[in-house]
């Protein structure tokens, strides 16, 4: 693969819109040169769907589509294996990166994809009867700070604050960030914080919910909590306009 070393960016593509030059490669959408081409029920599919035998549906017995992902039991994994995996991820990013900033961006990009997926999964697990879509900035922040954090780390984050000075800036604080629990940053790496991965998860979750934001992780140690990390969330200016229009 030639693009093996290509950086995985926190794709802000969700903010852009389609252009006329982007042609669907997969046959979905309307192609004027072909006409309507929608996915229709073929005679075979029809007989198949109507038949009562459902055992031959797939040749893959472990298909994700047959599994119950809402099940809340046995969702814990070993912290050690997670720590080793994360250690390798940091190493991998490190070996490809050109500098500290680059390393953080790469970690952020890896987390971004996790966040995009996780927020949908958590919303699904919450169930539709009791829960709602988050449409307000404060509400989604509370959701991330509470439910989301708990689902990933088994505990809620420690603090959620609004910046005094800057509009559209919020801070989530975690005293003991789980992923980087065992990592101490050497002095020559300066301001590096491996929780950039976590920041990426938050950013991915917010972006895909259309709360476009930039999230960065900063170490702010206090006595007793040497790893205390503040996630600084800076929302796009367009959000406050949207919010003010609706209220």
């Amino acid at each position, binding site marked *: 693969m030639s693009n093996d070393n290509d950086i995985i960016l926190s794709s802000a*593509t*969700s903010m*852009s*819109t*389609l252009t006329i030059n*982007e042609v*669907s*490669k*997969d046959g*979905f*959408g*309307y192609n004027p040169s072909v*006409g*309507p081409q*929608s*996915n*229709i*029920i*073929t*005679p075979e*599919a*029809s007989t198949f*769907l*109507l038949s009562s035998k*459902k055992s031959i*549906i*797939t040749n*893959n017995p472990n*298909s*994700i*589509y047959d*599994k119950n*992902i*809402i099940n809340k039991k046995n969702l814990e994994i070993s912290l050690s294996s997670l720590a080793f995996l994360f250690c390798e991820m940091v190493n991998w990013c490190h070996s490809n990166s050109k500098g500290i900033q680059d390393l953080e961006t790469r970690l952020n990009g890896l987390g971004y*994809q996790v966040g*995009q*997926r996780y*927020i*949908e*999964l958590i*919303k*699904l697990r919450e169930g*539709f009867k009791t829960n*709602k*879509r*988050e*449409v307000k900035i404060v509400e989604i922040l509370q959701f991330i700070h509470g439910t989301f954090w708990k689902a990933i780390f088994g505990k809620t984050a420690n603090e959620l604050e609004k910046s005094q000075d800057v509009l559209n800036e919020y801070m989530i604080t975690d005293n003991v960030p789980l992923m980087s629990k065992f990592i101490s940053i050497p002095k020559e790496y300066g301001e590096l914080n491996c929780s950039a991965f976590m920041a990426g998860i938050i950013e991915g979750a917010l972006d*895909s*919910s*259309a709360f476009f934001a930039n999230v960065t992780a900063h170490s702010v140690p206090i006595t007793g909590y040497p790893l205390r990390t503040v996630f600084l969330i800076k929302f796009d200016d367009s959000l406050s306009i*949207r919010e003010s229009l*609706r209220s």
Partner: protein
Amino acid sequence: MSSYYLTIIGTRDNPLYEVEFSSFKPNSSSTSSSASASSIPGRAQFAPDVREILPFIANSSLDIIDDSQWSTSNFNLGRVDSFYGLVVNAFITQGNVKFVLCYDNVGSGTNSKYDDNLIRQFFIDVNDLYVKCLLNPFYRVNDAIVSPEFDIKVKLLARKYF
């Protein structure tokens, strides 16, 4: 017997998946004007010119969805639009992916409430499938969903509910 057109729209208003189907129930009722003996159960029976504009109807409803997206915190947006007898129902996930279902309203005017509820259930199950699809590490947000398994599962849901 109603025909349905379901499409999944990504965050950039790009189509991710579409399918046409109709009610699988054998239409024993008297309103069997459109169904001929040779028809395949489950195949959508949109008129050709209607079929041509289905993606456009879905697309035009996106503006309305975008508008109501921020005023309600429901996942199911319900009936958002109608276009010459075609009704458009929509559902939006937390990750801003929209499910749009267009269907012709033949013979179901009396119990539309029941229909809406059915569609809501259908959407919730499609959302479940979508999240499963999203859990695939080789699938990225906003990619078209080409998994044949996803396809067959959606069609099974269609058979189950309609």
